[in-house]
């Protein structure tokens, strides 16, 4: 590939291995990206469900979620629009703990995350289990702001951040993979930032 005339790295070289290819450190800012209007449903009336291919479909109220054993993620998030935000802290509950209640059917292999806005995103079940995914309501110790998906969002930090659905209402377990919102609109089905799986057709 050709070098761009006159272009040089201006940001300091990041700690080796910290930033996936093609990403930059956005520092203290946190860009807001969403495809739909921000919903204003109050958290007191928020519910979250796991259904589909599970033995025991379950719905939690906002208060019931808060009463579950908490879990916190410390680390980096990566947006497909090329910013990464390092050293974030999100708190909520581990998806493993929620799935333990709903008990996935052995045939379940994929998950569709649904937002109250109608936004959807698909993930392999393996990407939301094993301590790698959370349902979160707090950022840096404060309630998660609406524009960033509050009161409740999915957090799957090892995949591009569109997989971490804002305004989460439901996880639906499925036997087969189906494309979600951005996946129908040209984006990759898995979205591993370390493999730069940004768009459909990327390896």
């Amino acid at each position: 590939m050709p070098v761009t005339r006159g272009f040089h790295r201006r940001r300091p070289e990041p700690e080796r291995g910290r930033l996936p290819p093609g990403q930059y450190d956005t520092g203290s800012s946190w860009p807001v990206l969403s495809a739909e209007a921000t919903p204003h449903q109050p958290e007191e009336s928020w519910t979250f469900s796991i259904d589909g291919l599970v033995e025991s479909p379950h719905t939690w109220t906002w208060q019931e979620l808060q009463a579950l054993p908490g879990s916190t993620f410390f680390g980096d998030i990566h947006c497909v629009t090329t910013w990464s935000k390092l050293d974030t802290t999100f708190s909520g509950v581990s998806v493993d703990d929620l799935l333990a209640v709903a008990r996935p059917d052995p045939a379940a292999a994929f998950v569709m995350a649904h937002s109250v806005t109608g936004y959807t995103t698909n993930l392999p079940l393996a990407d939301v289990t094993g301590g790698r995914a959370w349902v979160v309501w707090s950022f840096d110790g404060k309630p998660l702001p609406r524009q960033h998906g509050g009161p409740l969002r999915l957090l799957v930090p090892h995949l591009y951040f569109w997989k971490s659905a804002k305004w989460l209402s439901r996880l639906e377990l499925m036997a087969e993979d189906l494309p979600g919102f951005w996946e129908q609109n040209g984006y990759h089905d898995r979205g591993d930032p370390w493999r730069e799986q940004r768009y459909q057709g990327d390896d």
Partner: protein
Amino acid sequence: MAAWSDGRIIEKDQPTANTVRLRLHVDDRPHHLPGQHYILRLRAPDGYTAQRSYSLASDSDDPLLELLVERQPDGEVSEFLADVAEVGDVLELRGPIGRWFVWDTKARILCLVGGTGVVPAVAMARTARRLGRTDLLRIAAMGRSRDDLAYAAELERHGATLAFTRADADGRSAGPFTADELAPLVDGVDLGYVCGSARFASYAEDLLVACGLDPAAIRVERFGPTGD
């Protein structure tokens, strides 16, 4: 999804103090829909790359791709494009991308756009004109002042309604659009398209809903930091 290709800068100018307009030639470019964007990638001698998305202002039938770049404070890519890149330089491009914030040229739509968020509305207006379907498209565009709003004159020629937040103009006092101003434009549209900064988008979504548009009929493209 298209692979990376080379784009040569054919024209470069500065529509406002803070923006640069680039028009590029790309060989064998695929068709695009108004509202789609391209990724532009810069490559340093040490192999370091930086890439950013830019909405297209150009219609698909335009022989060149047109992008508007807003200079960001300490923006590694935007300052390079504004200050270093010259006509004749070759940049890597990939696109078109996005199938959501696009106009199918059939729905009746209102674009409520702010600042450099006018760019996709410009593409929609140019495409509407080519197809003879300007009746389907309404545009309400907001900027600080006429001099500060890229494409202001072109948008007016396309029949857009403009509002300036920091300047009185044509008998209108400085300030954002009000619900009274916007309601007639919302009336009868199938979809609302909002494009602008995060702060603008929050304001615009609320205004469209206040004017009676179903939140499910609003498509949003936001850019930039949150400002908090």
